[in-house]
């Protein structure tokens, strides 16, 4: 249910744009883009979208920290750890069923680490996509240049031929 009873009326700024067609400068400029954080419907949002590190979310980080992480190796290691923990959970359920909580927590920790690693691969993917798009664009532009050159030469040739034809009369 909405907090207010009715929709608010539209803001009265439309009066400022009465003479826009005659003089585009008589109306105020649009507001500049927001930087930093902003509040929307009572919630705070940020314009700087970055993946929060695991410590920020209060989750222990299992793979070694460092400037460059070997993603393949760490992903495979986490997969093996996961399998081992699942097996451990099965064992615990058979022998000491009341101690399942710790094992389940470990398994969820491994999953959180796994997903965090995969999410931190996304910027790399974004840059690779950008490179691909730029290469495609350069290729298309070069193709367009070739086409224009060819057409211009054809047009020049036709003009010269027509000149010869006209002069031949």
């Amino acid at each position, binding site marked *: 249910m909405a907090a207010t009873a009715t929709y608010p009326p539209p803001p009265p700024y439309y009066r400022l744009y009465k003479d826009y067609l005659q003089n585009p400068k008589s109306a105020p400029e649009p507001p500049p883009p927001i930087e930093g954080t902003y509040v929307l419907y009572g919630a705070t949002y940020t314009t700087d979208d970055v993946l929060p590190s695991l410590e920020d979310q209060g989750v222990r980080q299992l793979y070694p920290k460092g400037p*460059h992480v*070997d*993603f*393949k190796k760490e*992903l*495979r290691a986490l*997969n093996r750890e*996961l*399998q081992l923990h*699942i097996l451990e*959970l*099965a064992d615990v*359920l058979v022998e000491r069923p009341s101690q399942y909580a710790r094992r389940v927590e470990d*398994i969820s920790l491994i*999953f959180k680490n*796994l*997903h965090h690693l*995969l999410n931190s*691969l*996304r910027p*790399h*993917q974004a*840059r*690779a996509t*950008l*490179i691909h798009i*730029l*290469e495609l*664009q*350069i290729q298309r*532009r*070069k193709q*367009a*240049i070739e086409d*224009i*050159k060819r*057409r*211009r030469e054809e*047009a*020049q040739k036709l*003009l010269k031929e027509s000149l010869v034809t006209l002069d031949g009369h």
Partner: protein
Amino acid sequence: MDIISQLQEQANTIASLAFNTFGTLQRDAPPVRLSPNYPEPPAPAAAANPPSENAAAAAAEIAEQPKLMSAALVKAAKQFDALVAALPVSEGAEEDQLKRIAELQAENEAVGQELQNQLEAAEEELKQVQELFNQAADNCLNLKKPD
């Protein structure tokens, strides 16, 4: 779907296989003997009423399930490893990527400038040809004697 999304899907699949496995086993497991003092747990009620072949089939299926489910789990884990091997990630690649992006941007700028030049020259020539065509059409009209 791109490789990272496939990896994420595979991780979620492994998770759902794991909890389905444990849930099914827990639901279908026969009761366990707690201590030698207690009497043997009663046989499942299904064995008492319908004929025992039904119970035998059910027991066989209950024994098969862990094998099938664990096989599925291991297969999913192997699939995850295969997807990881297919990742096109190279070590220390961030600076290389940024350098390449800068190079490509510069080249794009240059090629765009050249394209602009060619376009302008072509439009200029188009204007000239149109002008010539207009003159030729005017001459044709003037040469035609009006009746």
